[in-house]
């Protein structure tokens, strides 16, 4: 990552539209966003407000129609797809609402997936996997397949996979959306610990005000615009 002055994510004038048939849907309109390093930011908003789209733009999964997205000093909106994939592998950890683990792989193998892209040896990869699973408290479930784990455990494996490469930024899309309250709280505890104890910058999209409260900062997205206050 290039040099940056404390602001890890800087989005300027970002717009994103989608076509649905002949109709153009304006999801994000001239949006600016700064996320300081170490921030634990929650993004709330009604369905279809563009939360996931914004998360995808910050994570380099999609490109804005206009504007720029800079993460850690790198202009990711103008990167080629191959370079962008490489950049994601090194700097971004994704946590998905439905965990998105590969059902044919064990917990350890799932966590190892992003590490396969690194030049680490097999032994080093194994150590990284063990560390990541220990952080999420699943060191005893390494050989279990996703179907053998509870929802909360699967999400913890998802988080272990996201942090396995020690990325700069964690992007979580409704990480508790598919969990009961108790499991959801455990996941939020984990994310809070990653932010406070490990200094991770986290952006979390959520519908749940209870989850948003655990973040250090909340932003609301409505009609393509960001506000600090919850819109009426």
């Amino acid at each position, binding site marked *: 990552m290039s040099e940056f002055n404390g602001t890890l994510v800087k989005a300027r004038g970002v717009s994103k539209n989608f076509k649905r048939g002949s109709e153009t849907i304006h999801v994000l309109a001239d949006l600016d966003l700064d996320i300081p390093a170490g921030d634990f930011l929650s993004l709330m908003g009604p369905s279809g407000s563009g939360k996931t789209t914004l998360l995808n733009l910050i994570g380099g999964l999609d490109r804005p129609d206009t504007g720029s997205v800079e993460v850690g000093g790198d202009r990711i909106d103008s990167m080629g797809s191959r370079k962008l994939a490489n950049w994601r592998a*090194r700097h971004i950890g994704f946590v998905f609402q439905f965990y998105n683990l590969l*059902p044919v*792989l064990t917990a350890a193998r799932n966590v190892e997936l*992003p590490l396969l892209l690194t030049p680490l040896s097999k032994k080093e990869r194994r150590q990284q996997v063990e560390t990541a699973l220990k952080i999420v408290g699943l060191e005893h479930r390494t050989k279990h397949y996703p179907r053998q784990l509870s929802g909360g455990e699967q999400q913890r494996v998802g988080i272990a996979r996201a942090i396995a490469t020690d990325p700069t930024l964690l992007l979580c899309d409704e990480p508790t959306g598919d969990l009961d309250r108790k499991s959801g709280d455990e996941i939020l505890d984990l994310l809070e610990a990653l932010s406070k104890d490990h200094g991770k910058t986290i952006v979390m999209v959520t519908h749940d005000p209870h989850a948003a409260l655990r973040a250090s900062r909340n932003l609301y997205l409505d009609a393509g615009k960001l506000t600090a206050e919850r819109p009426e």
Partner: protein
Amino acid sequence: MKYMHLVYSNLKRKKIRTFLTFASVLVAFLLFGYLSAIEAALEIGVTVAGADRLVVRHKVSLIQPLPESYEAQIEQIDGIVDATPATWFGGVYQDPTNFFFQAPVKPLEYLAMYPEFLIPEEQVEAWLNTRTGVIVGRAIADQYEWEIGDRVPIQATIWWKRDGSRLWEFDIVGIYDGAEQATDTAQFLFRYDYFDESRSESARGLVGWYIVRVDDPDNAVAIANAIDDRFANSPAETSAETELAFVQGFAKQIGNIGKIMTGILSAVFFTILLVAGNTMAQTVRERIEEIGVLKAIGYSHRHVMGLVLTESIVLAGGAGLVGLALAWFAISRGDPTGGAFPVFYFPTADILVGVLLAITLGVAAGLLPATQAMRLQVAEALRRK
């Protein structure tokens, strides 16, 4: 190699589907192996036919005999090194289904004509010293468990003995091997003098055909014409041709083997390509979201394409290679017809073609799904939940 567990895990995802696809490709390559072996068997001689050998037969057909006296006359024609007769004996050993080529020949001339028949000196000596002696090829010796010293009774169907009996008895004095894999080692060769003296008076002095060696293969056609001219307007006119043309003519009696085989295999492989391609397309369709996840965590388009292609090559290519290996193993255990083919082997060139075909099939079956996976946009793939 570090991605291989991912490939294997994906193949294990739908075990029955993977097994069925694997099995269908495997069977196709097993068929390829057998058809290759059958083609090689039916075209035996084409690959080893001597460019400097001619075959001279009666102009009307092969079953019409030629006079023994032609040998000396043929040898007088310019450009001919040697000529030796052979005759179709067509006897039965124990059971009519036990088919192999039997011919009375002149030992030294015949062996000189076919240097690809490898036989120890002392066995040749024994043949020359034993009037009822016969040398047999390794293939039939193994098939009928014959050993040197065995006496083999053959029931004649064409050449009855002078005393009216049909039973000919021969003593095995030698077993020859082939210099090449395609060399016919299923021949049963006995002495012409024994044959000629023992058969009925009326048939004496007649032979089936002549094998002729020329000094320059480039002049083979001209010499063949000279032979035919020499015997034109005689009671037994000849038809001389290169051994290659003679053997091909034999093979073509049951059709163009190569064309038949290509036709069958094209249909089989096209079907198999559809089967394997459909499996791969289905497997990619089912994993769109997972492909999206892989791309989200940093796998590039090329990475994903490589993974799908590898999976296809392991499935279709692997099944093809296993099929080839099984075919090789089964074919090397012997002719399934119990001796109808003089040779039965999986030609090396066809094995190499098979390997190439297996890999090509793997690539071809996976190419379209892999391209689709490569082109998949990550945000779009993740939205499909």
